[in-house]
């Protein structure tokens, strides 16, 4: 059965720059998301948005200062958390939502699904969730064949984990000993279904990977430092040629599946508990201040800077033109 990943993490053991960067990334992710929801409310962005609020720790923790531009990710459809942590310019992500040519897809309007930034290792996302599990082993295979030390991380939800592709992917990963890391963002729900209603598991989703002989664990995905540690170990394993790792990171959606989802199928008290006691940003902020490493004022200031950055990004994205109609005839073939 999957190990519950636990480590004593003491803030003193970390480079303060890393800690601040982790915090800043989380704040940026959330602020991005809140502003996007605002844009939706203003009618500027269409309804297919899956907010990532509440799970910022998972993405910041597994990416910030761990992955290089040359490392690959396949992000999931919940928020833009991983794209932001991987450094895709905010104006470009907003551009993809607003459908202006500032977007990474130069006006196709990727929305949440199809942004990409190969220069930063962001290889895109499959609209059919779970399909990218097979792509991920391919990318990892290519790195291994080329003899680089690149790592591939594939993100996917608890729901996506039940796609048939999971099996083919895990088998390849172990068989060819690939530098790939599976991060399952388990927020307990796939749209309206609780994981217990749709998953036949011994105890955890991570258990599915055990039979392949893939090192695996369950981790508190809302503890950004724990996420950092667990991913760091996995990256080292991959770089040392010791193959894949499966990480099930526990978290919870603060909002419904999509904007507009009544979100009435969950236990309100449970949600409130996650918001009050397991918010990754709130908790990490407390830790940072308590450790004496920084002050509330400093963090508030930092938040303001981030907000500023976001607003500028939106401005750039909004000011860029919409594409011409014939944009759709561009880029089908290389």
């Amino acid at each position, binding site marked *: 059965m999957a190990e519950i990943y636990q480590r004593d993490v003491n803030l003193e053991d970390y480079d303060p720059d890393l800690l601040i960067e982790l915090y800043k990334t989380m704040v940026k992710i959330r602020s991005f998301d809140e502003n996007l929801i605002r844009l939706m409310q203003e009618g500027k962005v269409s309804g297919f948005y899956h907010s990532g609020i509440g799970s910022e720790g998972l993405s910041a923790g597994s990416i910030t200062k761990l992955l290089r531009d040359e490392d690959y990710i396949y992000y999931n459809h919940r928020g833009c958390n991983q794209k932001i942590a991987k450094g895709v310019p905010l104006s470009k992500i907003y551009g993809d939502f607003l459908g202006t040519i500032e977007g990474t897809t130069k*006006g196709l309007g990727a929305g949440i699904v199809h942004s990409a930034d190969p220069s930063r290792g962001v290889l895109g996302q499959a609209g059919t969730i779970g399909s990218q599990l097979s792509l991920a082993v391919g990318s990892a295979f290519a790195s291994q064949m080329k003899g680089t030390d690149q790592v591939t991380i594939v993100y996917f939800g608890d729901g996506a984990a039940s*796609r048939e592709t999971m099996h083919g992917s895990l088998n390849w990963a172990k068989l060819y000993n690939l530098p790939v890391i599976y991060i399952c963002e388990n927020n307990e729900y796939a749209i309206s279904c609780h994981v217990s209603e749709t998953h036949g598991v011994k105890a955890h989703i991570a258990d599915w990977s055990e039979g392949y002989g893939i090192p695996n664990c369950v981790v508190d995905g809302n503890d950004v430092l724990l996420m950092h540690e667990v991913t760091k170990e996995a990256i080292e394993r991959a770089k040392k040629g010791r193959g894949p790792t499966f990480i099930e990171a526990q978290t919870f959606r603060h909002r419904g599946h999509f904007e507009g989802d009544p979100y009435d199928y969950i236990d309100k008290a449970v949600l409130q508990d996650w918001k009050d006691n397991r918010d990754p940003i709130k908790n990490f902020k407390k830790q940072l201040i308590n450790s004496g490493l920084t002050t509330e004022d400093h963090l508030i200031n930092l938040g303001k800077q981030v907000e500023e950055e976001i607003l500028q990004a939106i401005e750039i994205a909004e000011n860029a033109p919409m594409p011409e109609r014939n944009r759709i005839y561009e880029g089908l073939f290389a």
Partner: protein
Amino acid sequence: MRQITMREALNEALHEEMERDESTVLFGEDVAKFGGINKVTQGLYEKYGAPRVYDTPIAEATIVGAAVGMAITGHARPIPELQFGDFASIAFDEIFNKMGKWRFMHGGQMEMPITLRLPVGIAGGAGPEHSQSPQALFMHGPGLQIVVPSTPYDAKGLLKTSIRDNNAVLFFEHKLLYDMKGDVPEEEYLIPFGKADIKREGEDLTIIATALQVQTSLEAAEELSNQGVEAEVIDPRTLAPLDMETILNSVRKTGRVLIVHEESKTGGSGAEIAAQIQEEALFDLEAPIKRIGSPDVPIAQSIHLEQFYRPNAQQIINAVNEIIDVPV
């Protein structure tokens, strides 16, 4: 007559048929408590509960494969849903080779009473993998019946027929039609497969359209009528079986044909229909058969761009004018 939406019409059909036959079993992602992301299956879980109505894991190949396994026992009449019709691509082997061929290839010894519901079409910026209309692919697959309703009335009658049918049915629902209202009688009725419906009569040319494009074509036909051109609008309703008789009768009358569908043009259902028309009625044609489909490129996510994919009334009017302009 009573007016209800296509969503309500479909929901009624499901309620009636599940009531009627207790071997029916409805499943898919979020179809139970949540009532389906398009709310078509609302109230069924409350009425019939599990195992007659249940939510499945996100595993489309397994959903369809399991439906086949249920059907061939003779004990169940499955009504699975794929959340987006695009996901037929994930369950393609299960649909194309198993639903379509299992009975035949095992010597005709089992039945395949499955109705697979597939919401399709460009709607609200859902992007390249949640907006497609894959129905044409299945015309190339023996053993599959393809239903594509365009009105609440047709949707209800055809869904009831589908569920009662002992053979495989792919039931395509255009998402933009769910909110469309139309006449639906209180009394029970069924609509047979392979019977096209002439949605509008006309003498000047024949428009063959499916799903949402029936509505767009009717809109265009009204405008054309103002211009003095009377278009006959035919909705095949089922692409397999395909009612070529009704189509050919109309073509022989008008001599001019436009086919309109939202599927991308190349390899769309219009290709087969055009090929058959020219084969049977070449010398009745006074102008080349034209086809309108969405462009042969993946569908952009942007709402701004997606409008350029879905054929619109003006495009239809322009095409009709070109067809009419061909001298006799």
